[in-house]
């Protein structure tokens, strides 16, 4: 066990945990932010995606010690009122079904748009193919990303 300092959504947290524990469980069970989801534990489904210094990463496969003091953003940090262009587009397109994978999908899409303001189909496929939506909302996710890229100020 070790004291690890985490910076999540611009807030500082200090937790006493196994340094090898994945960031996912630190976020969910020690910091208490539940929007980031557990789906597979082996970086295959993307449900646990958060931003690390702006880059999308799989929190289920990152030891918490490796991300100490780095800037982590979770779905809760994207906006507190669904005002992020991606979240707005997700609502306009009525993307979710069960919704469980959508935090991860949204974090990946937000990261894509921050690097590429107008992604084409191939860019979107490449950025999103690490994500599984078992309900199969992919057509809407793609539409929403395009809509967000058009709506972006």
């Amino acid at each position, binding site marked *: 066990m070790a004291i690890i300092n985490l910076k999540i959504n611009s807030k500082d947290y200090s937790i006493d945990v*196994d340094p090898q524990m994945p960031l996912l469980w630190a976020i969910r*069970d020690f910091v208490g932010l539940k929007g980031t989801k557990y*789906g597979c534990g082996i970086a295959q489904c993307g449900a646990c995606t958060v931003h690390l210094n702006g880059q999308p990463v799989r929190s289920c496969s990152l030891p918490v010690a490796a991300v100490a003091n780095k800037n982590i953003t979770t779905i809760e940090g994207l906006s507190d009122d669904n005002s992020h262009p991606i979240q707005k587009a997700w*609502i306009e397109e009525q993307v*979710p079904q069960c919704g469980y994978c959508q935090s991860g999908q949204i974090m990946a899409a937000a990261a894509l748009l921050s690097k590429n303001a107008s992604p084409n189909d191939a860019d979107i496929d490449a950025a999103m193919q690490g994500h599984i939506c078992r*309900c*199969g*909302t*992919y057509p809407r996710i793609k539409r929403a990303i395009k809509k967000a890229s058009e709506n972006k100020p």
Partner: protein
Amino acid sequence: MVSRRQFIKNTGKASFALWLGATSNGFANAAFITDAPSNFTPFVKIEKNGKITIFNTKPEMGQGTFQSVPALIAEELEVSLDAITIVQTSGEKQFGGGQAAGGSSSIRGNYDAYRKIGAAAKEMLVKAASVKWGIGIESCYAENGSVHSKLSKEHLSYGDLIEEASKLEVPKEPKLKNKSDFKIIGKSIQRPDVPLKVSGKAEYGIDVEVPNMVYATVFRSPVIGGTLKSFDADATLKIPGVIKVVEAKTTVGKYQYSGVAVIAKSYWAALQGRKVLKVEWDTNGYENFNLSDYENKLRNLSKEAGVLDKNIGNVESVKTEPGNSVESFYETPMVAHHTLEPMNCIAHVNGEMLTIWTSTQVPSAITGSGPNDLHSQIGMKPENITLHSKFIGGGFGRRLYTDYVIEAVNIAKQIEQPVKVIWSREDTTQHSAVRPMTFSQLKGGFSKEGELISFQHKVISPSYFDSVGPNFDKTKVDAIMIEGIGEQAYQIPNIKTSYVYADFHVPVAAWRSVTSSTVAFAHECFIDELAHKVKKDPLDFRLQMLDKDSDTKRVLLKLKEVSNWDKPLPKGKGRGVAQWEFFAGLCAHVVEVSVTKDNTIKIDKVYAVIDLGEVVNPDNVKNQIEGSIVMALTAAIKTGITIENGKIKQSNFHDNPMIRMHETPEIEVHILADGGKIKGVGEPGLPPFAPALANAIFSISGKRIKKMPFDLKLS
């Protein structure tokens, strides 16, 4: 029924509300009381301050019931969906045994009943206003949560009318609105759960935290059917955070299993403890079980006559000329549900009292308010069970089963604190009941004139009913395993369907669209074979066998139109069609394909037509059908579940892959909602997809696919 006397007696209190709902001896009853009594199932509550609450007994798992069920009531009540509070019920006794979602039944089973509740309330409120104003009912109308007078500008909000309304009889046959006056039904109104799911705020079972909660992971027998012999927890108990190691029993259908639960202060600590846990299992001979042997057994069983299901005409008496008949054999795999939210459940046993927090499709079964009750299996009294039912991170049939709840309760009985049991993805893949495989033997015979005059479909498979209960009668047909076959609308003079039971030791489950997800593949590919045999267009061949008023014919005609079926495709493209009607509903697809340079099938486009009778939220229906096609594509072309040496070979998404965005075809959905029989939404999009795709592949390559999963790479 609540008496007027009770109403008068209770008027002094401030928190009174008009409750409208049902008792066991009549659908609609009203009461003006503080709390609905336990023998009364409330659907609507209207308070003096105008607050309107609609109680929703259908769990939300992505299918949209969170909106669609309240929409039916709100439409007739003349209130907007923004103005109501939706309360999802959690298996409470007063809400009865219908608190469950499955079988695409939420809307099709309740379309008129829910509307009548809203309409009855509205009629009472309108009448109350007319009494207050001393004018005729015909001079009053309800709109937007108020009753208005046509004679003046006067209006009264529902809250101001509840006391007067509660004195009235509940109309038994309230007048329902004309479809043309609908403001909610039939409109693509944004779903209220979407903002919660976009912000990360929607709470699923796995997200719940309760004070003093501990975590558990369960080590279950890797060999299916293995029993717990002994365990050594010495090393586990030395792991920091591990609290206790206990036996964890559960039940799934007729099967009882034991695992070993590691309870710890955190889930991560529990997982570390499980890694060093030593467990010995009795594998009871099941370690020799291999799926490939079992599949051979199913093939051999196809020689048996089996149990007769449907017998129209006399197939045996039909004499077909040599060369005028076709025989075929189709095979399908087992598949996993793979809800993205893995199984999980929090249970807290406090003496006689039990509290459960989980995501489930069957709240009333967990609390003992409905059939297939759980309480007898966990030794708890129904009145002592409290459930907190949460958003469901995928159901697809998996969460119809309560094995993960029973297991959590049995663990909770051995520790004071509430315990959250989380199944890893691997646990969920390898220890869940699976969709069974079905093998199909088909025969068809033509007359000299080329008319299809005989048709036989024999299903060989494990039995669903044998898995869920101990008393399955093997001399009878398992209706679930031949489900849908008998409902096909094709008019063929001689039809015989039958079922051959195959013994199996692996628990099997309903999977989204149940057995139609496999038998439709065989049935509708075989229809295509028959069309090819007599050199007919496969869509016209189907249409010619359908009565002109049949729903199936209407769907296929619409599909023919929207898919431009009569327009020849450019060179290098092919297409296939399939339809399926079954208990859940009716849908048909056309799949267009081409072949890439590396000799692989590319799915260019899917056209879908779903027949609903009436549609509540068209955009949500489209979302459901898009998703159904994606899920059906996974089942058609990705690895299923296989068993080697008694163990499920697949464990996670690397070896049990799902369709991803870049593999998703373009999908165009059309809805038929022209007042016919009300049909379901959640499942009908799946069964026709695999056969439509296989038929498309045949049309472009001449390769007849008879086994799922199949490869899009042509050899």
